[in-house]
């Protein structure tokens, strides 16, 4: 049995920008400027940026769950996946440089070595996957990296949701991310 890979209809440049660039830009504006009125700005920016990253990753996870190895993931997936990574990169940079004062040992001590390394691995895979997407690289290894990056992010989001379940916003965003992936899977199964 062969898998038929069909190209997804590419959205127009404008609709792609409105769907991905606009939420990213507005989200980052909120992350940077909206946090100015927070009692602890570094903490707020770190917190807001991970929430933005997960919200932007949700559509990408949906598209991934629905289309991966069925058809081209498409420009929309690439845009969401990249925008989410950009927000995540801001989260990492701000968290590491400002919150942890650039002290890797403190990161390890605070999160535990395993968690810190897993987070680092997911970040690296995510970055490599985005590089592959933009260079239009394909192949088995790319597929593996892509799958691990997506599943890793989803798992991290679910774990974080459980950890911060008492925080309604964190729980809500974790729920959205999970639902997005589940919805993608359901749609995948329905169109089999």
């Amino acid at each position: 049995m062969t898998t038929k890979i069909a190209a997804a209809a590419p959205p127009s440049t404008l609709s792609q920008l409105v769907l991905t660039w606009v939420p990213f830009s507005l989200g980052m504006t909120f992350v940077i400027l909206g946090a100015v009125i927070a009692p602890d700005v570094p903490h707020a920016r770190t917190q807001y940026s991970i929430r933005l990253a997960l919200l932007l990753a949700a559509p990408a996870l949906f598209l991934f769950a629905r289309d991966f190895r069925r058809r081209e993931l498409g420009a929309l997936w690439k845009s969401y996946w990249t925008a989410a990574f950009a927000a995540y990169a801001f989260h990492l940079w701000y968290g590491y440089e400002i919150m942890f004062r650039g002290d890797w040992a403190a990161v390890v001590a605070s999160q535990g070595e395993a968690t810190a390394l897993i987070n680092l691995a997911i970040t690296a895979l995510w970055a490599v996957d985005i590089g592959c997407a933009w260079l239009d690289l394909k192949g088995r290894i790319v597929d593996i990296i892509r799958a691990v990056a997506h599943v890793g992010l989803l798992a991290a989001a679910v774990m974080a949701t459980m950890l911060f379940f008492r925080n309604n916003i964190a729980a809500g965003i974790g729920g959205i991310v999970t639902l997005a992936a589940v919805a993608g899977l359901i749609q995948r199964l329905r169109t089999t």
Partner: protein
Amino acid sequence: MTKDDHSCDPKKIQITVKQVLDQVGRDLFDKEVASAATYSYLWIADQMGHIGLGLVVVFLASWILYFLNLPTAPDSYWPLYIGAAAVSYWEFSAYRTYAAMTTGLFPAGKLLLARNAVIAAFYMVAGVVAGFAWQGGELMAAVVTLSLVPALVILAFPWLRQKIVWQKAGLPFLFRLSNASPTISRSDARDLQNLIEAQIKESRRNMDAVPGGPVIILSGPLGAGKTSMACGIGTECAFGDVKVRYTTFEKLLQMAPPPADDPGPSNIIYWPWRDSELLIVDDIDTETKTTLDVDVKTFCDLVDRVFGNEEHCLGRRTTVWVLGPKKSADLAKWSDAIGKICAKGQERPPQVLAIEFTPPPPAPAPIKPAPTTPVLSTSLVGKVSRIAGWAIVVLSTLLLATSLWWLGAERGWDSRADLSEPDAFRYGTLGLELAPYKLVAVLDQLGGDAFKRIPPGGGAPMNTGHWWSDFGFNAGGPPTPSKKCPLPLGFSISSLLPQSATPVPVDFAGLTCAACHSQRVHTAPQFGGVDRVVVGAGMTATDVIGFGDALKQAVANPALTADLIQTTYAKQCGESEGFWQRVIGDKVEAIFISQWISGFRATTLSDSSKYDLPFHGTALLEAGGIGAGPARTRPFRSVVRNNLDFPGATNLAYSKPPAIFEQSRDLRPQSQYDGSIVDTVTRSLIAAYTSGATQAALNREPIAHNVRAAAHYTETLGPRNEVPTFAKLFPAVSAGDPATLAQGETVYMAHCASCHGHRRADGTWDVVTGASAIHRTAPLSQMGTDPARVTFRYAEILPLSLWLAFPGSPEPLPAAQRGPVCDGKTQELPAGYDALAQQRTALDYLKVFAGFSGDNVLYQYWAGRRTDDFEQARREFPAGHALAFGPKLVCYDTTHLGYYNNPIPVAYLRAPYLHNASVPTMRELLNLDERPAQFCRGNNLYDPVTMGLVAETPAAGAHCGAPTPFLFDTTLPGNSNAGHDYPWTRAQVAADPNLKADLEALIVYLRTQ
């Protein structure tokens, strides 16, 4: 007409360096509105653009890194790496796009495309390198740029030569065969490719051009791609260094008689067709059924007639003939005829390749318009949607750009983290920003009734000319080079938001260490009229709490607006300077000030339900009001409020801010009156925290730096550096004769040195000789002084609660650490010590303690809210709070309540005496004089003879007036002036004149301490 005639034989391309340079010169000099465009010029412009793009990219990368507070040029190579990667990716993408555009009919020719992408990337990277170097100083810029130029020029030469070769062919446009539409058969394409390769190979192999060559005939209808194919053949051959010439049939006929030729534009000069190795003849037969049309017989007659003896020249080279559409039989006739023409005068007949083009695919049918109304509305909606969509994209991009700019600009607005120790003490922000600078600067105008200091008994309000001197602040505030209205000493001017200490483009005023720890010493004329501010001495006139309450009242005035503040400031202190500051800066400032006013009012209101309404007017100066009066604070009311979040209203632990001279740990192992804090930095941290600085603010590096620097400043500050000695400050007052001094020293050593040590002759402080009781807690029962300072509610839980407010580092200690702690012992923290785990254990202890004591509410407090607070703080400061302190650096010993015996350097600047400032003079403290039960406090004069403040006692029933409007009543709770009856009680002194003489001598001696 002979094969021996070589006058029209093809010739090899010969282009010298000079010719290339001449072409470059012409290209650079030409005006594009007055001369033909050339490919060589286009290539030069292209590479200049690539260099420019590289410059833009590297500068952009540098700026973004700078804004993000990351290492950037010239210190870091990251802009170089990022720029090089970005432009390389750009060219790689372009290569991929063009490589993907091949139709498959002909080979892709990727090698040339790749070389082109590489050279473009090289020029862009050169721009990146140059841009990076230009950020690193003039020398680096010059060296790198000059090094790049030769490489760029050398690399340009072969490409410029190629462009010249191509443009001299006279081809109407550049076309690569790999992009040709599939309108010819694959076999024809293959044959054509073989012929082209053979032509190129032959041209490269031979030193001289070889006469003769195949005949290629292209035939097909309009739009089938014949001319493109002809140009493609010409382009491929020209890129293969074959001398190509393109012309139309009509033009060829005109150029038939030698030496006629069409040289083309003067800045190009086409190859003469007679020299060409490949001749392309276009538009032979248009098949338009007009007079322009020719049939095969007419064509042959024309060529024969026009070329005559020159006809053999056509066959001396490879030729391409472009015909209109022919039926197969007709095309065969044409091929035969052209073949014969080209065979004339040749040794053997040429190979003829006739290629027939198929008609181009029909254009797609136009889309039928939909019914009128929906189309119009859909079109309108679509247009509006598109416009709205782009507007949103542009707007969001602008917002993002503004945000990123803001993020970078925050560094510029942030306070310096390198203030010197004295400056950090005097002017450095401690995260105690109170109000916009502009408001504080014009409180004389906008403070209203809230800032009028009216004595309780009525009479004229205090009026020293400034609100700040009315409240006891002193001149000598922060340097304000661009600010025209100065603030008093004890204020900082920073661009940090109150509470969060976030950098913003608006100045705020806040309190510094010097607000409470500086003293104006001013005397009556008979003592020399001294008037000097001594930094480090405790304040004697400043009403800090009163100022805070007055500010709350003033801001609550509904008439106070950002516009009023800005307008008043502009009138009093001058307009804003600079166009952008006026156009944008003032608007942004107005937004922040408005928000601050709203927030401040809301906080005042919400706080009042728990902390009670702030006082104002006369109540600021009444014992029944705030109660502290000038020069005293209620630090534990504040710490109970800020740390425990309880009201603290019943806390009467009035304290004067102490003199903070010579606070080094060897002299003063424990700070505070009760010795409850060990480390000076922790002491300063808690002082700032108690005064209202948030944990988040104190975690910011500029503020943490100021706390540390100010703390260190106090360790050495004293008469050995900048603090004036008694003799220096009061030269008009006798220093005492040697006999009196010796007598005083004897008394001191006998009765004071055991608890306070003494100053040696060399100026250092001795805490060993005779100091048997120093660095110990003198029990309350022994001291007899007011107990409120050490017995207030919650005192026993505050140390641990304060410790928990500043989560420690999550990193276990790498090695054991030893250090003194507040019980006088030395503590050893083992390697692997986990501060966070210890703090969690402390939380558990507090819960258990509350449970055992049966305080269910307190248990819930620790188990619920404070546990949540701790976990939240741990998340906010995941690397540990910048000023987190170790265990047992703050403590409270319920078994040894009392006051801690410490040195008393610069004793004369410690008036009024006792921790609650209840004894105005040294004479009264030593019981030489009766301690007054009531006295007036405010801006009191200093009396060097009594070594204290001139504090009048009002007549019975009378009130205190300006400038000392506060009635200090020692009979009120927290104000007791009892205790510390050393060396002798008042009764003993009164009864024994010898003791009086000893004490008189002691006072003289104390002036030297």
